[in-house]
């Protein structure tokens, strides 16, 4: 009992200074201020089946609140466009579109990025439990899926950044594979 109480106090002590200065609400406000921009990205996928990670890179651009374009240049040119709930992928001669509303799991997955970029707390909390650490200049937001269907695919999403900028997103998949997406903003003119 005492042990538990101490534990609680300890947790409280840890949480208090952070929440006083910086909490999820504050982060969301900062993120929501970011109306869009461009970034260079590098993505590494660590897949157990493969002996080495798959690396891809290119450019991303975001326009608040729900348009996200990811243009992969290496290893293959590929454009992914998320416009509202339509996800279209163009690769070589092929182009296909998915209405994410058809795929609740995929939508939840996409919402993790979109909700973070737009600072939409409600959208995030619909599918994830949020844990924030760090301060406004260097924060880490951890999303833990609350729905079993989603946690069957993704165990944890870790987003980190500073102020209203997202710097990296890491997905840990249920099968142990993971991917890390790093972003470096390109100053807009």
């Amino acid at each position, binding site marked *: 009992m005492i042990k538990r109480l101490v534990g609680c106090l300890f947790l409280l002590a840890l949480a208090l200074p952070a929440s006083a200065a910086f909490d999820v609400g504050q982060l969301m406000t900062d993120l929501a201020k970011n109306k869009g921009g461009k970034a260079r990205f590098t993505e590494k996928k660590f897949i157990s*089946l493969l002996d*080495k990670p798959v690396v*891809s890179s290119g450019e991303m651009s975001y326009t608040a609140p729900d348009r996200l374009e990811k243009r*992969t240049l290496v*290893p293959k040119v590929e454009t992914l466009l998320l416009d509202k709930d339509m996800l279209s*992928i163009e*690769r070589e001669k092929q182009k*296909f579109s998915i209405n994410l*509303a058809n795929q609740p799991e995929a939508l939840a997955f996409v919402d993790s990025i979109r909700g973070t970029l737009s600072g939409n707390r409600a959208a995030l909390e619909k599918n994830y439990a949020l844990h924030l650490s760090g301060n406004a200049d260097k924060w880490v937001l951890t999303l833990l899926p609350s729905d079993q269907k989603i946690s069957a695919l993704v165990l944890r999403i870790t987003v980190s950044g500073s102020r209203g900028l997202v710097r990296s997103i890491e997905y840990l998949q249920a099968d142990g594979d993971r991917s890390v997406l790093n972003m470096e903003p390109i100053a807009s003119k």
Partner: protein
Amino acid sequence: MNAAGRAFLIWLLAMLAGAVVVWNSHFSADMSFFLPGKPSPTQQVLVDQLKEGVVSRLLMVAIEGGDAAQRAAISRQLHGRLEKLPEFVAVENGQAGSLDADRDFLFRHRYLLSPAIKPERFTVDGLRDSIANSVDLLASPAGMLIKPLLPRDPTGEMIELLSGLNAGAQPNVSEGVWASRDGERALLLIQSAALGSDTDAQERAIATIRNQFAESRQDAGVSDARIEISGPGVFAVKSRETIKSEVSKLSAISMLAIVAVLFFVYRSARLLSLGLLPVVSGALAGVVAVSLVYGTVFGITVGFGAALIGEAVDYSIYYFVQSGRLGAAEWRARFWPTIRLGVLTSVCGFAALLFSGFPGLAQLGLYSLSGVLTAALVTRFTLPALAGNDHPIRDLAHLAPPLKRAIGILQGLRWPIVLLTVAAATLLVVNRHQLWHPNLSALSTVSAEDSAADAALRADIGAPDSRYMAVITAADREAALQAAERAGQKLDTLVAEGVIGGYDSPARFLPSQATQAIRRASLPAVDELAARLQLAQADSPLAANKLGAFLDEIALARAQGNISRQTLDGTSLALAVDSLLLQRPDGWSVLLPLRPPGGEKGVDIDIEPVRAALAGSGALLIDMKVEFDRLYNDYLDEATLLSLAGFVAIVALLAVTLRSARRLGAVLLPLLLAVILIVAGVHLAGEKLHLMHLIGMLLIVAVGSNYALFFDRAGKEQRLDAPTLASMAIANLTTAIGFGTLALSSVPVLHAVGITVGPGAVLALLLSACFSGKDGD
């Protein structure tokens, strides 16, 4: 037995025989009315598609009311209920799991289905490239989807297969089922087992959907939910209802109005019944003739009865009113020749329609011709015997003075009328490009609202409209599939060039046996494959030793039998194949629907490159819209030709009978003026002309000539006596009522004839009076 008794007996027997024929007749209100009687090969495709094509069997369902979750619940309920019924071959609402069987089929048979399967695919280089491509794809956002398949399908055949399918327009999904774009309606796409041309079965299918919906709604506890159903079947059922209700309504209106007129004139129940005798006989004879010649009687044809009543009753009016004081023999001598000529001109007009390739028109022609002819013959041969000489008719002399005054006034208006006609003609010439309705929809009974509701639902659900199609015919199934594969290769090039967005082919899911054999032969033996994989994957992040499952899959594929049509059972792909690969009495045909490129290139396909690419492949390229327009234009050209021929026949008949250019001119002038004025009037009223207006013009001449001829006769005799004048006025009134009733119809075919001939007949009488020789009085 006296003469009257004998005449009545013969008439009665004929009527009874007719009634037997009518009793056994097949009535139809479907679109065969509009479809070509002797179609060209291209038109045959059109007709087949409309009558039995998949598109003709699609029913689109929208559920409204409640909230999204409630609508989804009803949608699932309805899906579950309808799926079990044999009336429906496919029920789709987008719910999860519904495509599992299809996906499993594609995956299991991917090595026989994938167009990429060639011997080169399994060489060391081929394996290295295709597997490297799959690994690259892992980097893509789509990677998550393919990762679980990678060990079993490292060369990416499933991706290869899926990319050929139409992933384009998928309906929106809300609460796990299809929904409209605004999210306010849940959607289902249903395919009936019954053919689109089987209106009875379509009606039953639609009723079943409604009943099942009512129960689903109850189960879901959403009392305010509503259902909307659209599609060709619904249109067919609605059109039939419209035609059915209009046929009885119009005939009743026409009959009642005419009976009222006759009663006013005769004031005698006996004369009234006798007067209707030729009408009833004519109407019956019309149906009998059509039934015997065509086998099927169209509802619209029967609807034309309203006009026939008005026209056929004229003869008995002439007889009773004109023969009142003269007696039957004198009437035959003095008036019958004029009436007979009038009957013959009417017959010429209707007979012209008999030669039409538009079945509806030919039927209308035969129906009216037999009806008018019978009515005239019954009037001439049966009526006098039945009526005897004892048919005292109320003195109508008091009608004459006002009528004569009216004629006098009209005769004073000759120049204004000529000027008015010149103005009308000028208007028509100036506006000649805006006069005509451009396509067959002008004749369709489908209302504009229904058509708009259908278009909205179609857009939401992404249902195919199958405008463009390549059609191949072959002797047997294998040859048909091989031809489809050859055409498919040419179409692939067009897809790559962006000329077309894609295409469907039965060979995609059921390749020809030859192609399956070639693909299977491309698969290497497992040991050989293992050795090649080692070499190919030496530097790859995906090591060969992780691809054991791939070797098993190839071994399985080599051992597996060919795909046959039966293999597809239980998947929705079976339906796709059946709808695109059809057995005909004389062989097999393949339909390859082409999809437009979409995006900024729009919804039209640039047809020439496609035609060029398919040249020599034996595939016939069809643009349904163009075919429809061409069909309509053919009908229109033909109707123009027939109208002219009918007109020429009438003129020739009159010329031979009248033997005087002056008299011929005097008869024709008012009729031509009437036609011009009526057409201008219809145009000014904002109606677009279509081919039935054209037929109406011919009928103005054919029917109107009856009145002009009386004036001609009066001119010859130098007098226009009171009974003649009264009979003309009354006969004209009944004709105008008969045709005028059709103008009330919402069936365009009937409306157009009514709106031209109704007023046209009156105008023909007035103008004939106006231009008749000065009455000596």
